[in-house]
């Protein structure tokens, strides 16, 4: 475990136990297969059930809905470990937990909670989250609509870059509600007539998870499937804030893998009669990775404490998501360079992490968008549009 500043001492006994158990799970069940799943273009469907058995899906939810009642910090430790194996594998868990189970729990009726959450927690069901459209970073430009029609809503529109949509059993879809002029959330079973989810092929990143579109053609869902507590764009954005929090931890797990691989390689690789780890330029790269990891871990831990105290603000999450992911991306690039030609092969995990992080750097709010959030925090001036 890479922990220069002994952040582990700041954790509770349960948080350490969650970290250790997930680390053992990752080492035993994920690391040996991560590259194979990448090569195959997707992890097996059954992995979601293994995540479910281990309690990794929606673990912060209360036990009556299949959660474990974990603290935000413990959840972060678990995401760190999953992403130590692969960002796509962490994405599977964070989409299901933060973006599907999260809104159903927070905004849904008791009926919706009881109907969907236990199956999603066990991994029997797979969920996806439909917010993003062609407009990307500008969700207020949403064109998908929901029209009330008696005891139903009729959904029309399309969503892109949706993790897990081609294999999902249920989608949480966000749409502009006609006559209300605000965004509402709907639980849409994927076998509803008019729902389709074509797969997006040719991905060179996050290949362990499947990505697709969501196409809604006059898709009729019962009015009871509306997330009643979600009124306006703030609802889906709050789900993203949760997911981004987990990503800030996950990125550091990936950075640990890049650092550990580069360090070991540099100690073993000899040029001009000495291991390259003895060279100042190589040490600078390793030192930078170690420094960024250490600061990032303190940052994510502090964020988790604030979240557990209910004091977390979106700009704080933007800071951590932005900086930790960029640090991991730069670390993976540096590690690739330390490994030289070996770094480009699948014999080492760094190129896979590097390609994954190219996505992580721009999804869930791009690096630049989070910079603008911080800029607005600093100046009070909105520079988005």
């Amino acid at each position, binding site marked *: *475990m890479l*922990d*220069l500043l*002994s952040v*582990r001492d700041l954790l509770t*006994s*349960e948080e*350490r*136990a*969650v970290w*250790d*158990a*997930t680390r*053992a*799970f990752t080492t*035993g069940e994920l690391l040996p297969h991560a590259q194979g799943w990448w090569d195959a273009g997707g992890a097996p469907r059954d992995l979601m059930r293994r995540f479910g*058995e*281990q*309690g*990794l899906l929606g*673990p912060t939810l209360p*036990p009556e809905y299949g*959660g*474990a*009642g*974990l603290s935000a910090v*413990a959840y972060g430790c*678990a995401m760190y470990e999953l992403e130590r194996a692969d960002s796509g594998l962490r994405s599977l868990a964070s989409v299901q937990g933060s973006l599907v189970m999260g809104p159903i729990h927070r905004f849904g009726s008791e009926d919706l909670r009881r109907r969907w959450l236990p199956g999603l927690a066990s991994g029997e069901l797979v969920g996806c989250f439909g917010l993003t459209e062609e407009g990307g970073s500008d969700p207020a430009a949403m064109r998908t609509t929901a029209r009330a029609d008696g005891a139903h809503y009729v959904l029309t529109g399309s969503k892109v870059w949706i993790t897990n949509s081609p294999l999902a059993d249920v989608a949480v879809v966000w749409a502009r509600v006609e006559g209300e002029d605000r965004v509402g959330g709907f639980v849409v079973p994927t076998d509803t007539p008019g729902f389709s989810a074509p797969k997006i092929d040719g991905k060179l990143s996050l290949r362990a998870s499947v990505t697709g579109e969501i196409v809604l053609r006059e898709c009729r869902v019962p009015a009871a499937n509306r997330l009643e507590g979600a009124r306006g764009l703030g609802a889906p954005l709050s789900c993203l804030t949760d997911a981004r929090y987990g990503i800030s931890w996950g990125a550091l797990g990936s950075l640990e893998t890049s650092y550990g691989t580069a360090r070991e390689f540099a*100690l*073993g*690789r*000899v040029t001009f009669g000495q*291991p390259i780890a003895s060279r100042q330029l190589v040490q600078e790269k390793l030192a930078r990775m170690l420094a960024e990891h250490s600061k990032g871990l303190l940052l994510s831990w502090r964020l988790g404490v604030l979240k557990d105290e209910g004091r977390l603000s979106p700009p704080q999450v933007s800071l951590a998501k932005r900086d930790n992911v960029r640090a991991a991306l730069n670390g993976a690039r540096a590690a690739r360079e330390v490994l030289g030609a070996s770094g480009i092969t699948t014999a080492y995990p760094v190129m896979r992490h590097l390609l994954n992080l190219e996505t992580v750097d721009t999804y869930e709010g791009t690096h630049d968008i989070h910079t603008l959030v911080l800029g607005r925090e600093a100046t009070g001036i909105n520079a988005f549009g």
Partner: protein
Amino acid sequence: MKILTLIRQVPDAEARVRVTNGAVDLEGATLVMDGMDEYGVEQALRLREGGADAEIVALAVGPRRNEDALRTALAMGADRAVHVETDAVLDPISLSKVVARIAQTEGIDLVLVGGQQADWDSQALGAATAERLGWPQLTWTNGLQVQDGALTGRHDVDEGNETFTATLPAVVTTQQGLNEPRYPTLPNIMKAKKKELRKDTLDQYGVTPLVRVVGAEIQARARMNRVIDGKDPQAAAAQLLELLRNEAKVIA
């Protein structure tokens, strides 16, 4: 029946330990339950899942941080835990006195301890505990069942393995291959918070260490840092054989 599983805490296999002032410095190292003891906890759980009506008690004798390892045992499924908290480093013979006393006061039928005690490697703890209690001891166990109040199992010997039966109560030492320990699940980690973890002091057992560690060193071996180019697998294999045979002299 009642099963007592002894838990020891050791540095994680990937931990880098330092020696400071003649003693192993665990500062900054991640400490986990000894793998051998995981087999013990797992086997106790399997005996119960196999139909034995068993209460499983996890025991640790050591510093405050041992509590994490006990919590892990509780999260795996042990019913309750006893922590004899002490900063003293006990040799196996002294430690066996505590284990034997608890086995008696708790009315234990089966004691499971790690085979090698990863941080001492003495293999003496199980034997000394059995000796104090006058119970049979079964070592290097890689198969274990309980039927009609008796143990049946298998253990390794130099030439292969033996199967055995023994009466309860008994002491059993574990080894790799006994089972595949489960990962504690996140819900069970949270449920374990509510399980009993009793704190005892070493004074209650009247035990003082008989052996004192006065120095420690880490054996460091320089690596040859030689990497064989694998572009031509046959040439690489031939070169490896040549090195193993003529340089390392580990094969004839």
